[in-house]
């Protein structure tokens, strides 16, 4: 047969067609690559937005005040009840003697945060000897000043449109030139609960709420999920009832999460009378949600244990239960734990059902037990995302970063566990 270097009409047609076919393949490959890069591009865009918005929240602006704790401010025994706000106000007036009008004074007082008074109170209560001494104290600045220091306020706009007036700007410049304003690591963000003031808001309350909620979820869903998986995989007779359970589990895995919230509201709260907004009821709802994930993963893990193990155990006289609990379960455990961690990671990021059971309340106190009202991390993100203050955008992104860090750690643990204990039969 002749090879195709002659330009007979047949070969010409053939080569043309071949070229077209390869071109089509190349186009399709490019399309596939494009799809992947679009998806990854979205991911990169999302992460870079969150990081660029959020990293600045880990630093906070502080103003140094030269405070004289005059004796006259402490008329009664109870040092905690003295008027610390007045001390701060008079200190500010001292530092800026040129401010006289009432309106300007109000502006001046707004330089420092409301939390400054608490800081002074804690100092004095801890160490009463401070009274009648002069101290240099770093107090948190107001959130607008914080935004200004982080270059997040556009000073080129007309004065009436911005949150920082020209006078305030000049005071901040004065403070800056005296070295009395600085940025420090934001410990408040990690050590306090929610607040209406962005500069005082932190995620500890939400993080603890998440911890208690996940604890309940883990304690309930892991044993129940593993037990259900063992029954379905090892004991269930091949009949309609077992098929029905199986259909139910597969379907529950795909039920919208908000429906579980409705169940929690109607049954756990209205019918059983479990208090709203608590980690207890949140954990119960999330248990029902994560159970299908854990059951499906555990069943896959049990299925991967070869039958020869079971046959060997049964052959030397172990009962079915002994076979499962002494031999099959330990071999399947790593896979089950991996599935559980992934289920927990899902539960940690879940928001919608918790809105239904009242975990959206504004809660300042840090929860101390599973029956204290509390928020959880994703709900805190939702609440802050809804707040109008500019500074909360930054806090929201920072809280997202913390949440993502937890998720990365959990998923990494799952991957490591799988890598380390995976047995290839």
């Amino acid at each position, binding site marked *: 047969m002749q090879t195709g270097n002659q330009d007979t009409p047949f070969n010409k047609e053939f080569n043309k067609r071949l070229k077209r*076919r*390869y071109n*089509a*393949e190349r186009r*399709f*490959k490019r*399309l*596939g690559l*494009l*799809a*992947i890069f*679009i*998806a*990854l591009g*979205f*991911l990169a865009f*999302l992460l870079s*937005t969150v990081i660029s918005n959020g990293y600045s929240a880990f630093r906070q602006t502080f103003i140094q005040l030269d405070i004289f704790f005059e004796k006259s401010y402490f008329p009664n025994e109870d040092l905690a009840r003295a008027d610390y706000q007045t001390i701060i106000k008079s200190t500010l007036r001292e530092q800026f003697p040129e401010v006289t009008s009432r309106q300007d004074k109000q502006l001046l007082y707004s330089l420092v945060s409301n939390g400054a008074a608490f800081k002074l109170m804690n100092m004095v209560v801890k160490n009463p000897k401070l009274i009648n001494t002069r101290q240099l104290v770093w107090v948190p600045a107001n959130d607008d000043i914080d935004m200004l220091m982080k270059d997040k306020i556009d000073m080129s706009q007309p004065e009436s449109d911005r949150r920082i007036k020209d006078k305030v700007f000049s005071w901040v410049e004065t403070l800056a030139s005296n070295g009395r304003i600085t940025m420090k690591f934001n410990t408040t963000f990690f050590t306090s609960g929610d607040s209406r003031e962005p500069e005082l808001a932190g995620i500890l309350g939400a993080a603890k709420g998440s911890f208690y909620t996940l604890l309940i979820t883990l304690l309930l869903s892991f044993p129940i999920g593993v*037990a*259900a*998986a063992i*029954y379905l995989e090892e*004991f269930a007779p091949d009949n309609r009832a077992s098929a029905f*359970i199986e*259909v*139910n589990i*597969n*379907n*529950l895995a*795909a*039920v*919208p*999460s*908000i*429906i579980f919230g*409705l*169940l929690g*509201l*109607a049954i756990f709260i*209205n019918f059983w*009378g479990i208090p709203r907004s608590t980690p207890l009821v949140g954990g119960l709802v999330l248990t*029902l949600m994560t159970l*299908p994930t854990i*059951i499906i993963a555990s069943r896959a893990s049990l299925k991967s244990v070869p039958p020869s193990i079971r046959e060997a155990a049964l052959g030397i006289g172990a*009962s079915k*239960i002994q076979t499962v609990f002494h031999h099959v379960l330990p071999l399947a455990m790593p896979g089950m734990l991996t599935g559980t961690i992934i289920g927990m*990671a899902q539960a940690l*990021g879940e*928001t*919608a059902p918790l*809105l239904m059971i009242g975990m959206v309340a504004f809660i300042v106190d840090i929860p101390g037990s599973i029956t204290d009202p509390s928020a959880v991390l*994703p*709900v805190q993100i*939702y609440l802050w*995302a*809804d707040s109008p203050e500019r500074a909360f955008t930054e806090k929201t992104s920072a809280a*997202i970063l913390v*949440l993502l860090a937890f*998720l990365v750690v959990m*998923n990494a643990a799952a991957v490591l566990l799988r890598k380390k204990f995976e047995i290839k039969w």
Partner: protein
Amino acid sequence: MLYDYLLPLLLVLTAAAFMVGRKRALRMAADYGGIRQLHSLPNHYGSMMALACLLPALLLYGIWLSVETSVLDSRIIHELPPTLLSQDAGAQALIINDIKNTVSGNVTVNQDASIEAAAARYQAIQQKSRSAMCIGLLLLAPLSSFIAFRAIKPAFRARNVVEGIIRAALLLCSAVAILTTVGILLSVIFESIRFFKMIPLQDFLFGLSWSPQMAIRADQAGSSGAFGAVPIFAGTFLIAAIAMLVAIPIGLLSAIYLSEFASRGFRTVVKPLLEILAGIPTVVYGFFAALTVAPLIRESGGFFGLSVASESALAAGLVMGIMIIPFVSSLSDDVIHAVPQALRDGSYGLGATKFETVRLVIFPAALPGIVGGVLLAVSRAIGETMIVVMAAGLAANLTANPLKAVTTVTVQIVTLLVGDQEFDSPKTLAAFALGLILFIFTLILNVIALRVVRKYREQYE
């Protein structure tokens, strides 16, 4: 007093029962000529006795816990002085609530002396019933253990008993799935029936206007309380359709590329990266949609002279589509992998290029599975909540314009139920009716999808 230590005490009793049972089995065996004469392991006898101690007690405790409140309430109502008795059930419930608050120490400001007396009485009855329960429980546990103790003999099949109980416990755990489904149905159906008594079903399903704010006064303007859900359904489908327009092509193409064209190294790097998209919490997508994507779309729309709502369906749908990409791609990846290699080899043997093999052989073979996966993705898009709560609108507009604001079923459920709820107003109950529709719809989608996927897998196994 005793009540606080009840559970630890019970656990101690259980542990003791285990030891005693084990000891007795060993001693019995010694009489008959050694441990080999026992039917089961000594631990089985111990466990049997421990279970005999624990289970009846727990059962009693559970029953008591579930009836305590209602029995106490009815007794206290019987004993209330006539000044506190009220014909109205709601007012009566309030009084009971006041009494309970007083009992738990949350004293309200204006406290009626008769309420305080009732609270004291309540506390006394509660104390009495609790002590009675404690005593009953502490008698029952040793009694049932003793019956088990008497049963221990070398020929007694303790292992069978214990394993039977374990089996029953395992069955019970797997029945939780059924209980959950039943719970979901009950919780939405009852409230929905109440809702449909107030608002006829056909008005709800086919009405064209939705404004759930009920008038508090008769003469109040603008609060008509219309419950026509068509605009909500339309909005839900609009956003889900946008999401699927984004997710299906990108997810499917990337799955095909990764499984048929990509090198091993590329695949191992890119696949986990794509799966990160699935692991990001939805609230993060919501934040991204509301604060980054929506303003971006509005500005670029303004650039082309289009007026875009700040809560446009496009922004929410687009971000939801991104979220669903890994879902579509991993499901399609599974089904493409399930296509037997022999089909590919046959196609290559006939001289087809890779693309032709994908287009003419693999894709048609995998199509049923892909359709199943897409149906699951649609069900997820319809049930997704946080993205639309944060980025979509609240007003129920009946429009097909993706640049306008629309609302969805999940958004309405959240807005109706967050905050104060009255379970006798159609506004609150409407959320449950919407939940019922959402549940039924996603259930049908899921069942069809799961069946299609399973059929498809069986075909090649």
